């Protein structure tokens, strides 16, 4: 098992350096004017970043308002009895709600929970697995669709939320099974 983990870690260390070196090297071999081509491609970086701005502003300000208004806490309290029926402790609910919305916010929740329950507690383990196995769905949607000016996202949001929900439930149950 630890061999596999070592291998994975090794690969992750090498990916970026290999790309950085291999692309220009192969380019040279294929007689591509590498420097000029690089600059040509890199020019796009600025436009892409600027194109994303309106989409990110739209998503992030709405989420920030929602958090500041106290609606998030209310939602967590209101949903608690419902979710405890399917084995989700109310303490990890804020994590489940915030995770698709903001990465830094959900990281803050892990920190809070470690302070409150101790890093050995099963609640922190649940939150950590939830954090590690899901993504900030709304941020990803804003950035990727924003980059190509897509405004009608069709089923992208429900798909992302379904996947998050399934992974969150699985995280809670798996941790309970392994450490409960």
């Amino acid at each position, binding site marked *: 098992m630890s061999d596999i983990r070592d291998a*994975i870690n090794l690969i*992750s260390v090498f*990916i970026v350096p290999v790309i950085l070196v291999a*692309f*220009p090297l*192969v*380019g040279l071999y*294929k007689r*591509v004017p*590498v420097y000029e*081509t690089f600059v040509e*491609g*890199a020019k*796009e*970086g600025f436009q892409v*970043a*600027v194109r*994303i*701005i309106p989409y*990110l502003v739209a998503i*992030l*300000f*709405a989420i*920030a*308002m*929602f958090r500041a*208004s*106290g*609606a998030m806490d209310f939602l967590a309290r209101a949903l608690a009895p419902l979710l405890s029926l399917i084995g989700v402790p109310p303490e990890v609910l804020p994590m489940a709600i915030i995770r698709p919305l903001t990465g830094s916010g959900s*990281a803050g929740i*892990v920190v809070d929970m*470690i302070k409150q329950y101790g*890093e*050995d507690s099963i609640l922190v*383990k649940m939150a*950590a697995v*939830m954090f*590690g*196995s899901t*993504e900030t769905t709304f941020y*990803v*949607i804003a*950035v*990727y*669709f924003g*980059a*190509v000016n897509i405004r009608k*996202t*069709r*089923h*992208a*949001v*429900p798909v*992302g939320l*379904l*996947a998050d929900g*399934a*992974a969150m439930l*699985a995280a809670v149950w798996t941790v309970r099974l*392994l450490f409960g």
Partner: protein
Amino acid sequence: MLNYIWAGLIVSSFLFALGYDANDLARDTFRNGQALPVALAFPQGYDTARQVPVEIRIDPSRYATFYGSHAEPAAGPAASYSGYLVRSREGVQLRFGADARLPEPLATIAKASSSRDKELQGRLVEFAPPEASPTPDSAAAPTPRVSTAGVVFEPVRFVRLNAIAAAALDFAKTAAEIALGLIGVLSLFLGLLKIGEQAGIIYALVKLVRPVLRPLFPEIPPDHPALGLIALNITANWFGLGNAATPFGIKAMEELQKLNRSTDTASNAMVMLLAINTAGVQLVPPVLLLALLGLQINRLVLPIIGTGVLGLVVAISAAKLLGRLPVYRASDPNR
């Protein structure tokens, strides 16, 4: 869907903020205009200078009765706070030090305060100043003189409404900063990708991953570079290289947009790419968890990978199945 969620977030924020604030007003949570009893000690003696350092003592039981149920029973006031008195034409002002760790609701009052440095400040009433202390060179160590007073804080209203407005402005700025912060990394990888395109690396990659990715993206022509970019994006994501994954994903989206007949509506292939990206498979545990949990993370690696893969399976199935619903089939731009 995004329209409703977005509007829902904004409208519900406003309603909740309004509700909480109305509740605060009705219950007078902050005791606006009333005087909180405090005891003031003057460690350096009391004089009539403009600014006098003072030690503020709040009796926990009187604090609890004053604020009623709004005071947190667990976190009462500390034994004493350092602060200072400021004399002005309007009277004597009591200011708490900026670093004071205040209990609720004082912390909220301090945050809502209009003072520049967010010091908690209030007007002193019923303040009987102690007699001017003896000169410092007197033989006996000066015992701090204590006098009682009441302190009336600035009235606090509509805390949440102010908070949501501040949060919206703040995060609008953050969003722009995040996007602009991406410029460097985006440029770097978009430049490399251009070389990769011209040198045929992307094309070689397409041939490699075609058997796996083709079934997920049936709309993409077999030799299209999008498949290679998607493969790069997925690899970077799974190995925890978010910085590299984003430029690859964006480039892949641009290629998919070239195949899309609509300028503003997502194609099925785009939704599938998003599905794979929003399901967070992480073979390498996030650096942040490693930093927070230390070696404990070792026991969580397998559960994290397992639930991530399950999320991915759900995401792919949902993208395929929801795409067949009449609503989404009707909105498919490439139908």
